[in-house]
Structures are given as C-alpha cells and as structure tokens.
C-alpha cells in the first residue's frame, strides 16, 4: 500500500498494461521522451523503449486511425489524445470508423483500442481545453466510456480498458491529477460497467463522476450534519452503465440527484434520468434532479469558471430540495 496521486495511478496502470501484454503499445504526442504533457506517461518510455512507446506528430486523425489499423491486426493500441477537447479533431475516426468498424463488417474485426485523454474544467484552461467531452460520444453505440474519479479507479479502469476487446474512451480529469490516495501494490482491475457505492445513505441517491463525485461526497457530509442521509454512487463507466446499482439505490431512497460537470443537453445525466424513468417512475417520490453546468462554454476568469462548475453548495442545495419535496 503506497500513497500515490491520481496521475501516478494512471501511469502505473499504463505501465502494468504494457508489462502484461506485449501486444500493447503506447503512442501519442510527447508521450515518450517527454513523459506526456500531463506527465501521465512519465518513465514509460525509459522502461519499454522506442518500439512500444512512440511520439507522434500533431496529427490526431492519424493517431486514431493508426490505433484502429493496428488493433484489427492483433495489437492493443493505447493512444493518448492529450486534452479530451482534441477528440473533436479526430471525431470522425472515433465515431465513424472505430465505433462502427466491427458492426459494419459483421463482426469480422475487433477493435481493442484505448484512447486516454484529459478532461474537464476547473484549472483555468478556458473554453477549448476544459470540456467534459465524454458527452460527445453518448449517441454513438460501439464505444465504451470510462470516467475514473479516484486513483484506484484510474488504475483499475486503465487495466480493464486496455484488456477489453472493444474501443474504450478513457477520460482522466485534469482537476484530479494531484489528488493523493492509498493504492495497494496489487491494486485490482476494475471491471467496466460496475458502479461504486461511495457512501451509503437513506434519503437520496446522488450519482456523480470525477470532480463531481468528490463534491457530492462533500455535500453528503455537509448534509449529514443536517440529518439528511445521502447515498453517493459513482458509475465509473458511462457505457456500459450500471443501471442496476442506481436502481437498487433509488428503490431504497426514492430520490435521485445527478451532479454533473457540463451542461444538460445531450449529457449522461439526462440519459441516466431518462433511462431510470422508463421502468422506475414509481420509485420516485420527487422529481429526479440534474444539477449541472449552465449552457455556456467554459470561461477563463476564475470566478466565471467556478460558477460554471456545480459547487458543493449547489449540489447540497439540490439534494435538500429533492429530499424536502
């Protein structure tokens, strides 16, 4: 058991994935010699060498396509797209080629590609470097999407992503890189599609990922002092989504709040609420609430950016209103 940062957990996940399977290789812009723009691949090149760890030109379309081509020929590419916002530049490769290749060929190929990218706001990077880009991909069947919020999940989901036979988009949150946590030396693989119940509670179920997961826990602690008992669930994987865990929780609490970074339109929070309602309408004693960002891009100035991200107080307030309903 050692204390590591979220960033180091990612690095360890990548290293262990490379060590576990010779078919895994890592590539992207400045991932090799420089150890990654966020230092998430620090030391990997030194350990695994030029053949398995490669710097690329600034060519995200080529990166994604190369991953696909290598994958269908038996390799397990682990590609880095530095900021998740840059997934826009290679969006075609991800949604039109990677996601559909297996289906269009009637199952002739598998695409065990992992693309990891840094996500999210709160660090002053402004509109083009701060988006919760996971929401761009929700309407594209064929992709799996993971959103680790802790060091253990960052590690365990990286291992699961690389070992998975389907394309996995792995979003790491920039605001969590420095978070420290204990991580056992033999940290487990975290299976895709299994939520974690972070905190048990009776009055309300709160579902949140990444930065919002931690704020939800803080909100829950705050509310505990007010006598409100909150269950916090981190789905960890958005596709496939662990509906069973959320549903089982709502069966007990009869209330659902989703705390989400990013605006409401086309989001995973809205998707979850809609899905839950299809079968679980009667479970709810109050309207399911989506606490999320306003419908604006992310601004640069600290105060503006801070207001965009749901705060602990806003989450707590949403829970209060839901419980009081």
């Amino acid at each position, binding site marked *: 058991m050692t204390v590591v940062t979220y960033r180091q957990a990612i690095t360890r996940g990548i290293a262990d994935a490379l060590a576990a399977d010779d078919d895994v*290789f890592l590539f992207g812009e400045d991932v090799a010699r420089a150890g990654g723009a966020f230092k998430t691949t620090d030391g990997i090149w030194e350990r695994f060498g030029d*053949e398995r760890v*490669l710097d*690329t*030109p600034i*060519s*995200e*379309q*080529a*990166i*994604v*396509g*190369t*991953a*696909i*081509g*290598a*994958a*269908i*020929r*038996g*390799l397990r*590419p682990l590609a880095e797209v530095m900021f998740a916002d840059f997934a826009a530049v290679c969006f*075609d*490769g991800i949604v*039109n*080629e990677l996601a559909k*290749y*297996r*289906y*269009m*060929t*009637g*199952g*002739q*190929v*598998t695409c*065990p590609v992992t693309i990891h990218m840094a996500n999210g706001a709160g660090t002053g990077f402004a509109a083009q470097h701060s988006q919760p880009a996971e929401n761009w991909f929700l309407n594209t*069947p*064929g992709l*799996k999407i993971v959103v680790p919020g802790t060091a253990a999940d960052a590690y365990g989901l990286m291992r699961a992503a690389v070992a998975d*036979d*389907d394309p996995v988009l792995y979003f790491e949150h920039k605001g969590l890189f420095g978070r420290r946590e204990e991580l056992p030396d033999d940290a487990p693989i975290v299976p895709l599609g299994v939520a974690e119940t972070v905190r048990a509670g009776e009055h309300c179920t709160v579902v949140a990922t990444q930065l919002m997961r931690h704020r939800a826990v803080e909100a829950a602690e705050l509310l505990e002092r007010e006598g409100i008992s909150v269950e916090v669930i981190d789905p960890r994987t958005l596709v496939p989504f662990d509906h069973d865990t959320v549903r089982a929780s709502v069966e007990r609490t009869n209330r659902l709040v989703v705390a989400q970074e990013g605006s409401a339109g086309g989001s995973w929070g809205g998707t979850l609420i809609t899905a839950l309602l299809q079968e679980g309408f009667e479970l709810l004693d109050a309207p399911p609430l989506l606490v999320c960002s306003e419908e604006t891009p992310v601004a640069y100035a600290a105060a503006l950016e801070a207001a965009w991200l749901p705060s602990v107080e806003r989450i707590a307030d949403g829970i209060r209103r839901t419980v009081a309903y």
Partner: protein
Amino acid sequence: MTAKTAGGQAAAATPPDRDAQLEMLRAMHEIRFFEDACHRLFATGAVRGTTHLCQGQEAVAVGACHALRREDQMTCTYRGHGAVLAKGAPLDRSFGEILGKAPGLCGGKGGSMHLTDVEAGALGSFAIVGGHLPVSVGVGFAARYRGTDEVSICFFGDGSTNIGAFHESLNLAAVWRLPVLFVIENNLYGEYSPLSSTTPIEVLADRAASYGMPGIRIDGNDVLEVHATISEAAARARAGEGPTLIEAMTYRQKGHSRADPAKYRPEGELEAWLKRDPIVLHERALAEAGVPQERLDEIRAAAEQAVEEALERAQSWPDPDPETRLEHVYA
C-alpha cells in the same frame, strides 16, 4: 507515361509470367462483369441505397493486388468492389453483401460501400473520404511491430488527396518509415467535379515531396505497369525503406454513383478513354505476345459465367434474421 517524381529507383521486379498475366485478365473481366451486374441491380431498383462502380479502373486494383501476397493487407473506399475482389473475396458473398443477404461478406450489415473480407486481406471499404488512410498506417505499423514483412496497401481517389487525413497519414507513415503503399486512383473526378476545380496542382504524385517519400505517376490502365510499380514499391516497403505514393491515371466509365448520368464530361472524353479501356489494352498486349484469340475469349466467357452463377447463388440466399441486428456492436 511513367513519370517518377522522386525516389522510386529500387531494382526492377521480375515481370509476371504468361499465366499470371492471363490470370490478371480473368480478374479484370470478373470485376467488369460484377460491376455491370451491380449497375443493372441498382439501375432497376432491385437494390436500395447507392453504389459506386469501377468499370474502367480494373487494372489498378488487379495490377496492384496481383503484385502482392495474400497476407498483405488492403483497405479501400466505397468504390472498392474491384479492390476487394482483386484481393480475393468470393464473388458470391460479395454480391450477397450488396444484396443485403445473410451470407453476404458482412452478413448484410455493410452493403455496397463496406465490402470487407478479412480472410482475403480485404480489411475494409470505407465510406468517409480519407477515413481509411490512417487505418492503413496502423496496419503497416502492426506489420512492423509484429516483425512480419506484410505490406499495407491503401486505395483512394484523386479528390481524397485534398482531405486532412491524407496529409496526416502520409506524414506519419513517412516519419515512421512504415510499409504502406498509398495508391491514388486518379479518375479525373471527385464526384462531379473535375480535379482542376478543386486542386491547384496537376500531378498529385508530387505531393509525396511534402513527406520525403517517393511519388510516382503511372498509367493506371496498363495492368502490367501497375504490377511492376507496386512490386517495386512493395519490395522497398518490405526492406524497411518506407511508404510510396503511387498515382495511377485511370477513368471511371460510369457515373459517380447510381444516380449520376455524368453529364459534366467534356465531349469525347469518355470515348477517348474507352479506347484505352484496361481490358482492351491488356487483351491486345496478350494477343500481340502470341496468346490466341480463342484463349482470350474463353477467359472472358468463363469470367462472365462465374459472375452470373455467383449472382444467382447470392440471389437465392436468405435475408438476415432481424435479430442479428443486435450482434457485433461489441465483441
């Protein structure tokens, strides 16, 4: 018509022997009959969606694929029937896919624009212009990573050289010196637009210079010239000398897609190119080399029959079970 604009000076490959040349004739005939049959199927509304045919361009796919090995890997476009067949996909299952039948190459999920036969090394037909170029880079990467001497070949059109993925793919293949052959089938048009209206230069092979790789323009209607060029480029690729850009000049004799009467052609253009029909040219060369006309006719007739039988077979196949629509989203 060969104009090597850079590099391209590897040792001359041994030319294909007589049998191999006849085999190429057969292959071109099969593609021609296949495409003619598709034309009928779509024109009469027997099949929905759209199709993009390659009559007139057969020498590129056949010359190239016959210069390669079965274990070499190929990607192509929506105009890929010829390439997929040349690489070795069966006629009947190719028809079957276009007809949307269960035993079709992709179980009916792909259709005309996505013919794929991984067993034959026909890794996929892509319908987004430029989409497969980076994929072909990855295929080349895998070959080197795994220490095989497979070559990755990638067919695309002249118009596709203006899309961003073209640039990124050639650049990356060149930096990493990967065994990838980029083959432009320059048929003078991207959809309805002549190349000159969309592209500020004339010789697309010249774009190779941006990547420090050899760029070669060849007569794409001369199956032997294609064969020789690809053989050389493949040898260089296998030797670790990196990618090549090959511009094969050719002509599509039909419209861009099912709906296109190709009215934008200048007068006389089609006729001039029909005189340079790749099958006609190859037959003439074989006749001049002493192959008797009956032998040539036999090959043609056999190809026609094979195609007809394949089509009949495919038409008799069942549609896919609707339940299969839920398969193959994930592994």
